[in-house]
């Protein structure tokens, strides 16, 4: 069963609908005991970093999540701010991240951009996987929906599994062991997103 971490943020129901259509069992997890049923975890998110961290810290799920991800090495997929929260820190806030991946979250520095570009990075953009495996198995020239002004910069280059160009080339998907993240929203990215979520379920 895939647990959709429900800490009051992010589109739990959109994930649930996609997995239901795929015939894959996925349930919202609001308590530690619901979370403990999981063999995979999705950590969604919309909002500012500190607000999301506060909601997660107050949800009563943090300890169980850490145990499942760090000790039991259960596959977890963080989405958007859910991905950013897995880093150690963020330019957007003062609270510590979950620290599941060696990375920090930086604000796009538009002064470095060659073209006149707007922030937030909003809309459909190309995602270039480093290899057509794992989350990106069978995905030819995928495009996804982005909505963000901050991006994750992993310390280890090998943790980057896909990049996207927006003023600079930035990390749009990461993997470090059992920890996966996408800066874009697969749950809102039509067939490209559905295929990625199916791939995660079948890892």
């Amino acid at each position, binding site marked *: 069963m895939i647990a959709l971490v429900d800490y009051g943020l992010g589109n739990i129901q959109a994930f649930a609908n996609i997995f239901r259509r795929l015939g894959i069992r996925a349930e919202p997890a609001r308590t530690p005991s619901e979370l403990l049923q999981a063999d995979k975890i999705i950590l969604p998110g919309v909002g500012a970093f500190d607000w999301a961290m506060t909601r997660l810290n107050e949800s009563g799920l943090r300890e169980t999540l850490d145990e499942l991800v760090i000790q039991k090495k259960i596959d977890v997929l963080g989405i958007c701010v859910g991905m950013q929260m897995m880093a150690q820190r963020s330019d957007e806030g003062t609270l510590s991240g979950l620290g599941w991946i060696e990375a920090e979250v930086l604000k796009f520095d538009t002064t470095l951009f060659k073209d006149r570009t707007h922030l937030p990075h*909003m*809309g*459909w953009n190309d995602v270039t996987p480093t290899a057509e495996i794992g989350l990106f198995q069978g995905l030819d020239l995928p495009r996804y*929906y982005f909505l963000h002004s901050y991006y994750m910069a992993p310390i280890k280059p090998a943790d980057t599994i896909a990049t996207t160009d927006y003023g600079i080339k930035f990390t749009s998907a990461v993997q470090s062991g059992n920890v996966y993240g996408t800066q874009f929203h697969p749950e*809102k990215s039509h067939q490209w997103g559905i295929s990625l979520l199916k791939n995660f379920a079948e890892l």
Partner: protein
Amino acid sequence: MLRPRIIPCLLIHKGGLVKTVKFADPKYVGDPINAVRTFNEKEVDELIVVDIDATRNNHEPNYKMIANLASECRMPLCYGGGVNTIEQLERIIGLGVEKVAISAAAVYHPDLISQAARRVGSQSVVVVIDVKTAGSSRRPEVVTHNSTRRSGLDPMTFASRVESLGAGEVVLNSVDRDGVMKGYDLELIDQVRNVISVPLTVLGGAGSHTDLSDLVRRHGIIGAAAGSLFVFKGKYRAVLINYPNRNEKDAICSSRP
């Protein structure tokens, strides 16, 4: 490469989907959830849904309807209508909506913009600016409450103010062009684009794919929103949900400079 966004804008009135002309004469065009399902199949870039009764009648947003829409949408959703407080805005984000639009509240309680940007992040805070040419000078002016109240504000000054307060996107909506389907107000769009650096989405006037291409040719990355274009077909305005297919969309996007 980031693409321009082509965005249907749906209006909710008395629980049904309607389309107006110059913000008046709402014509019933169908059920909101059915429309969302059709737009899912057509792989639309984004959807804007505005409850045009909420502010006018001083209602709370209809959270049940918003939750249903958000869970049906396989594309990002921007909700607007009756959002006046940070609590309402946070609750709507919590329902799984990516972006919340404020309009009258941005004019009358602009501190809501900065509050919202701090809590949910600028990327989810959209300000819809309804503009109508008004007065003897025929100058564009920001209006609210479905164009029943004039604010005295100049759209360019107001757009740059909402950006500095933390809005992550401006939706510029021309009341004069609403439902007219004869093209966007490109002059007004140029003026607003020049004073802000956040993403801009424009609404009001699109009547053909050529209108969308013309806009993209001029502005490259922009949100091209439309109501009538995506719910009516033909000169008798028969109700038919439609949207450019992948090839047509690529053609529109390829007109960018």
